[in-house]
């Protein structure tokens, strides 16, 4: 929605700022570099070459779609917008189906679930999950980005996030160094819950999708109902 006043102003500002430095040469250079790296990986490590392509595609998608996990959890509370959260819920639905297929291929019809080797991130859940989530939530809102968002914005040229990256690396290294301590204290004592173990993979998948769809409708309703930070 725009008005004539804004249109006029926009045209005037565009006229004042004619000199645009083109960034297309940089794009060309980086495309060539990316292809060269892909070629090198094909020679030395085939697995890395696949990761390289998947990584590039994920980065491209996140950048173009402005997919931001921080915004998805911050904006509903701050301004009452849930468009990004809805996108995340849809991504979860797709992921649920995808992972159910992957795990079904792995598990098959067997009744015994070898939960430590099933593909996916199946980890013990306990008080450490909640504490970690709260700390991470506070941190990501202050720094303005989670891991993927921070990396994407650095690539985009948003300088502030380099400070975040330093903290991010420090935190990761500290975490890796002290993991054993926390593991002894909380993680190894917590149970590993894998719901398909109790109700079977198909029902677990359908149940999760139903819950996600209900969440989607709730979030959609929340968006229409809430107009926070209005004047």
């Amino acid at each position, binding site marked *: *929605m*725009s*008005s004539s*006043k*804004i*249109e006029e*102003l*926009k045209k005037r*500002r*565009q006229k004042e*700022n004619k000199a*645009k*430095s*083109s*960034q297309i040469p940089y794009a060309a250079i980086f495309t060539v570099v990316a292809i060269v790296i892909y070629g090198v990986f094909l020679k030395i490590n085939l697995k890395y070459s696949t990761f390289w392509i998947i990584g590039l595609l994920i980065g491209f998608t996140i950048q173009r779609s*402005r997919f*931001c996990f*921080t*915004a998805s959890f*911050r*904006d509903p509370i*701050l*301004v*009452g*917008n849930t*468009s990004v959260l809805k996108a995340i819920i849809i991504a979860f639905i797709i992921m649920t189906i995808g992972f159910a297929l992957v795990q079904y291929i792995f598990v098959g019809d067997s009744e015994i679930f070898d939960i430590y080797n099933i593909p996916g991130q199946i980890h013990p859940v306990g008080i450490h999950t909640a504490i970690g989530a709260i700390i991470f939530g506070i941190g990501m809102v202050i*720094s*303005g*980005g989670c891991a993927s*968002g921070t990396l994407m*914005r650095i690539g*985009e*040229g*948003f*300088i*502030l*996030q380099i400070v975040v990256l330093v903290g991010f690396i420090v935190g990761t290294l500290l975490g890796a160094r002290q993991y054993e301590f926390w593991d002894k204290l909380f993680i190894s004592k917590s149970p590993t819950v894998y719901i398909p173990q109790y109700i079977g993979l198909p029902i677990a998948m359908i149940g999760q999708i139903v819950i996600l769809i209900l969440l989607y409708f709730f979030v959609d309703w929340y968006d229409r109902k809430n*107009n926070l*930070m*209005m*004047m």
Partner: protein
Amino acid sequence: MAEVRIDCMYETCPIPLLKALKQLEKMNIGDILILETDHSCAVTNIIEWAKKQQYNVDYTELNEGEWEIYIEKVK
């Protein structure tokens, strides 16, 4: 009609939105707020919010990676 310019360069979300909100509160109806930012997420963030508030809003990319958002206070 006044034009107020606020500088949100190098500011990360949600600071530009909060700055815009505070500035808009001080402005009169019909005034235009010009918000400069280099944070592409702020563009989507602010425009979505402004549309929800039913303000007139638009933006343009003046230089590569530098945007100006225009919000007209209509109520």
